[in-house]
């Protein structure tokens, strides 16, 4: 489910089934050199999480990307986000990101780090198949966590 009013109504009535939160973590980089790749990573991350949401609509709640700047204190962010997620009462929380700095973060469980693939210049069908390949790599991680 998406983090939108309509889905949240359904979420509230079906809480026992929707036990997993997905939080995309997105670094904003507006420097001359980083802008393009930052935007590409954003596109990649959002397409991937949208596909994931479509596959597991009834079990995950997909949050909007949490965006931060390059210099953000990730340790503090990790604490804040995970404590907020705890309030939500989710049994499983996944963080998806293309930012390698989260990999070393001990306090966050289930950080899925994926290298961003620049999909911006691909044609539609090719992009679709690339993203589905990516999705296939992520799905088992979810199924493992659930089982």
């Amino acid at each position, binding site marked *: 489910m998406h983090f939108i009013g309509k889905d949240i109504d359904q979420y509230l009535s079906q809480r026992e089934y929707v036990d997993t939160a997905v939080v995309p973590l997105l670094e904003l980089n507006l420097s001359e050199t980083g802008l393009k790749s930052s935007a590409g990573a954003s596109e990649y991350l959002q397409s991937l999480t949208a596909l994931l949401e479509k596959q*597991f*609509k009834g079990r995950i709640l997909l949050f909007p990307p949490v965006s931060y700047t390059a210099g953000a204190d990730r340790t503090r962010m990790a604490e804040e986000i995970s404590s907020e997620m705890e309030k939500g009462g989710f049994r499983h929380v996944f963080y998806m990101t293309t930012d390698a700095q989260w990999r070393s973060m001990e306090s966050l469980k289930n950080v899925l780090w994926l290298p961003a693939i620049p999909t911006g210049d691909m044609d539609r069908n090719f992009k679709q198949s690339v993203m589905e390949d990516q999705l296939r790599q992520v799905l088992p991680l979810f199924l493992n966590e659930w089982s």
Partner: protein
Amino acid sequence: MSNNRVSRRQFLGYTLTGVGGFMAAGMLMPMVRFAVDPVLQQKGTSDFVLTDQRVEDITEEPVRVDFTFEQQDAWYTSEVTNSAWVYKEGDRLIALSPVCKHLGCTVNWAGDPNHPNQFFCPCHAGRYEKNGQNVPGTPPLGPLDEYDVQEQDGFVAIGAAKENTLTV
């Protein structure tokens, strides 16, 4: 001069009836037009979306067929890709919606190794028979929806979703 002369009274009567008639018609016509308009309205050229799946390649084993259409969401138009599970029963094409009737996940054919001839929803282990009938005792409450489906120039074309007609 003819014998049946029109009197001034008659002339005024005819004129007023005529003019009144035009005015009444002018008011009634649009009303009638509005009332029958939905019937006259033309549907878009075709509600079927052509896919790139050949009909001759389809067997009795359901395959996933993707189709893309434009969806307008208030001011935002986006291209949406949906998929359907398509298989043949005899010569008849059947397309089932992959959307689980429980909470809307995407179901997979033979997704559960223990039940190779059923659709399986990975979220809460919902299962459906091949014709879309939900397996009792699993979370889904109804059968999978069905799509209108037809063959166009040898390719599968997928239409509107409707309630499942295969299960009784």
